[in-house]
């Protein structure tokens, strides 16, 4: 096999390849090739995709940028939206409240990052602590269930294609378009590739960072609200979404060091994770075994698909990324 040819694959292809592989395995083991598996995966995936898209935008803003508050904001969004929808009778107001609280939480992160100059991982950690305190207070004696209309929509899948998945897919395309075609998208990518150069070119850090963190917060809270309407609100509803959202984004081909966003890859990564869970449940693996395999697969995918070529261009490369390409040059302290 010519390994060099593999380096020319588009960045999102790997995640879909992995997802298809798992799907084929699932079909092989269950012995039936119906669309049920895909429909189920498409019903569950959009929530992870929404969180992942926010995380992707944040990571694209350059090294050091990450949002570790998504899990707690997700849970908070879920609890609040159900509470508001229950008391007002309108699911739209519930979703609005979730977006609002996501915005508030993300604002705390933004203020801490831009004004107090706290590294994003610590700033968003503080935000997540605050969000979890609010969730815990809110959850005391909490009783409420989702609005039936909203739940019906989330479960509605005409012709085996969940309508909600189509909506999120359209949103993903919109994000792709914004990144590829608008000035702001180009600025975000430039900022992520070389922060200092971008700033010399007149791109303001605030304009980029404020937007990505706010969008990530809103998306996490909104996804939480929808997920809570799909099943039931819970303080621990979002816990899996932190690690999963980061893993899914990176498996999808987005560069952790910033400057390359692959919205389509988030779908591939999410489907891969969800189909994998389904497959492991099918063959009766315990939760423990599932975690071990998931870990090994994440490492394997990273090993195969990461930016560095499988065959190094020359043995002389001193740094762990190719030293000559400007976009992978080890950046100067971004938050000093």
């Amino acid at each position, binding site marked *: 096999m010519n390994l060099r040819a593999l380096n020319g694959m588009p960045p999102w292809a790997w995640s879909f390849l992995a997802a298809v592989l798992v799907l084929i395995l699932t079909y092989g083991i269950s012995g039936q090739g119906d669309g049920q598996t895909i429909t189920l995966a498409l019903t569950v995936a959009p929530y992870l995709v929404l969180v992942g898209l926010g995380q992707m935008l944040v990571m694209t803003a350059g090294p050091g940028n990450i949002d570790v508050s998504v899990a707690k904001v997700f849970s908070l969004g879920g609890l609040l939206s159900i509470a508001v929808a229950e008391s007002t009778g309108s699911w739209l107001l519930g979703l609005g409240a979730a977006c609002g609280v996501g915005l508030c939480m993300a604002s705390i992160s933004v203020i801490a990052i831009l004004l107090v100059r706290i590294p994003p991982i610590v700033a968003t*950690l503080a935000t997540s602590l605050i969000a979890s305190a609010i969730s815990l207070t809110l959850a005391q004696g909490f009783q409420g269930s989702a609005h039936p209309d909203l739940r019906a929509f989330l479960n509605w899948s005409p012709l085996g294609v969940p309508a909600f998945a189509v909506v999120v897919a359209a949103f993903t395309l919109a994000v792709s378009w914004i990144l590829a075609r608008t000035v702001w998208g180009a600025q975000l990518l430039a900022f992520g590739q070389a922060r200092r150069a971008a700033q010399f070119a007149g791109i303001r850090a605030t304009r980029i960072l404020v937007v990505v963190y706010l969008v990530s917060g809103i998306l996490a809270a909104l996804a939480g609200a929808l997920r809570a309407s799909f099943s039931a609100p819970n303080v621990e509803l979002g816990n899996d979404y932190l690690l999963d959202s980061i893993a899914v984004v990176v498996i999808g081909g987005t560069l952790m060091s910033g400057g390359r966003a692959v919205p389509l890859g988030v779908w591939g990564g999410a489907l891969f994770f969800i189909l994998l869970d389904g497959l492991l449940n099918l063959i009766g693996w315990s939760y423990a075994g599932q*975690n071990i395999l998931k870990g090994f697969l994440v490492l394997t995918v990273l090993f195969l698909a990461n930016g560095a070529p499988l065959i190094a261009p020359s043995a002389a490369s001193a*740094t762990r990324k190719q030293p000559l390409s400007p976009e992978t040059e080890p950046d100067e302290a971004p938050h000093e």
Partner: protein
Amino acid sequence: MTSQTTRTNLFGITFPKGRVRRLLPALLTLVALVLILLICGTLQPRIWSQIGFTLIFSPIVALAIASMAQMVMMSIGDIDLGVGFFVGMVTTIAATLLRDTPVFGALALIGSVLAYAALGAIVQLRGVPSLIATLGASFIWLGIGMVILPVPGGTAPGWLSAYVFWTPPFGIPVPLVTMAVATAITWWMMQRSGLGVRFRTLGSNPAALARAGGSLVVTRMLAYGVVGCLGVAAGLALTGEIGGGDVNAVPGYTLTTVAAVILGGGMFTGGRAVAWGTLAGAVTLGLLTVLLTLLNLSSNLQPAVQGGIVIAVLAGRLLVERVAR
């Protein structure tokens, strides 16, 4: 003045600028630590005793050692998002294998350190971001821990419990001894040994390390191995503290240790090792929980106050740094 170093003026005394930048954050954290301790002591005077100190500091020992591991990781410019589950996994090994069949237990612990070193090799050879590699590994730690102990249980080995319940002479609390020894060893390794120089060079200027003839792969593997060793030490300390094993005991360590290193003056960009500062950071974060309990604050609100105080301390540091400049 003949010295070539740039100097900065702080409260009328001049210091080398580099040293101020390195030590100031830890100093501020230390001030916060002393303040919190004093408030705790005012609220509950009984903590001023060997038993009192042992009680409030023993839950912090494992956090402090795990923070050392994170500090070594951050000194080479990487972040470990798997340390919480790794420490949890070590407690499950310690509470079962290490107690029943010490040889197998020790082999398992050595194996997990080697696994960490292998992780370092993957990160270096394939240019995988450490954040995501350790995240992937954390799934594995969690899984292994659940295989060994599906539900919390087991018993700490006898010698470990004996150490935890040991009463040293002169009224010195055991947890302080453990933390001080662990920090001193880490400090010596990072600041006084050739290994530490190589780690810090890998963090600040990997190209320089390569040109000086050091192997990047070997250095990174060694650093990850050290992180693994410290993780094992933290796990053993935690086993002694909780008296058993639970893989889900401390998932929060992953992010708390990062906060401890940052509070201690560490940086994400690598090249800086702050062992004593990290200790101050970890103890501050641990004491916060004690303080909030003493204040009878609803346990639901505790995380919010913790988050707020982390922001406040870092904001205070920014202010003081501006003044110092």
